[in-house]
């Protein structure tokens, strides 16, 4: 199975300008958006799983990127969301810099391989400086998806 980030990420799961500026508030805003768009059934459980993960490790991976993630049965399938912050959010990134591009990944507990594959693909994609720059400058969810589609292999 070839997993494509551009196929898993839906335009409705993209927030071009997230309002919150603090990590937990950002996660809450993202979760509420996912619940409103019916990607997540149990928002409270999802939020708990993400917060638990955040307490264990820094999901701010540096270079202005954060990938909060969790395996939880609050979702029925692998789901992805993306949010962009103009001011940056403190995600305790290892390089000490705020995160501007936030990708959220969640999968059901029993979909471990799909989940790991998605995290790996996304991490590899976001290591490319040009992709990070294009994502920062994109004007619409469709443009975001096109950038991902063109750059994922």
């Amino acid at each position, binding site marked *: 199975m070839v997993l494509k980030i551009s196929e898993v990420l839906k335009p409705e799961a993209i927030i071009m300008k997230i309002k919150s500026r603090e990590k937990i508030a950002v996660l809450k805003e993202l979760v509420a958006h996912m619940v409103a768009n019916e990607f997540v059934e149990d928002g409270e459980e999802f939020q708990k799983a993400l917060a638990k*993960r955040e307490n*264990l*490790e*820094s999901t701010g*991976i540096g270079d202005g990127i954060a990938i909060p993630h969790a*395996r939880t049965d609050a979702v029925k399938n692998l789901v992805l969301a993306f949010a962009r912050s103009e001011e940056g959010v403190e995600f305790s990134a*290892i390089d000490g810099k705020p995160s501007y591009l936030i990708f959220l990944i969640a999968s059901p507990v029993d979909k*471990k391989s799909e989940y*790991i*594959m998605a*995290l*790996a*693909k996304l*991490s*590899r994609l976001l*290591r490319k400086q040009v992709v990070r720059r294009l994502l920062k400058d994109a004007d619409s969810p469709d443009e975001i998806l096109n950038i991902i589609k063109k750059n994922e*292999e």
Partner: protein
Amino acid sequence: MKFKKVILVLTDPSDQHIDESAIQLCKRFKSKLFVLFIIETSRISRLARLTHKKSETLRKKIEDEGWQSLYLIEDAADKTGVWTSLHLEDGIATTIVKKYIDAYSIDALLVKRKDETKKLFVSSTVPVIGL
């Protein structure tokens, strides 16, 4: 002896079976676990010569497998409550490891004991634990 921060160095996706020992060690010593996967430039060139495949194709495959190894370790560490930080770098292992030891004040280095890791045992400025 206290190990506040340890770094597990991987250079090959098949090294991942040592992750359980690394996690248990961190749990026992209440250590933070930095996991570093290094895509060794020399290894890519050697593999390209042996397999007649393009270096870039091999590098992409190894990077993908490297990230998967990292996230699998993180997933396993999560169950035991061990704090992790994941990293992937391209270059020369000894140079990159030294950079990480200095940058994050690492107390100990964990590596798979094999011929290729001899250089890490010799050059490290912190204790090295072979798993």
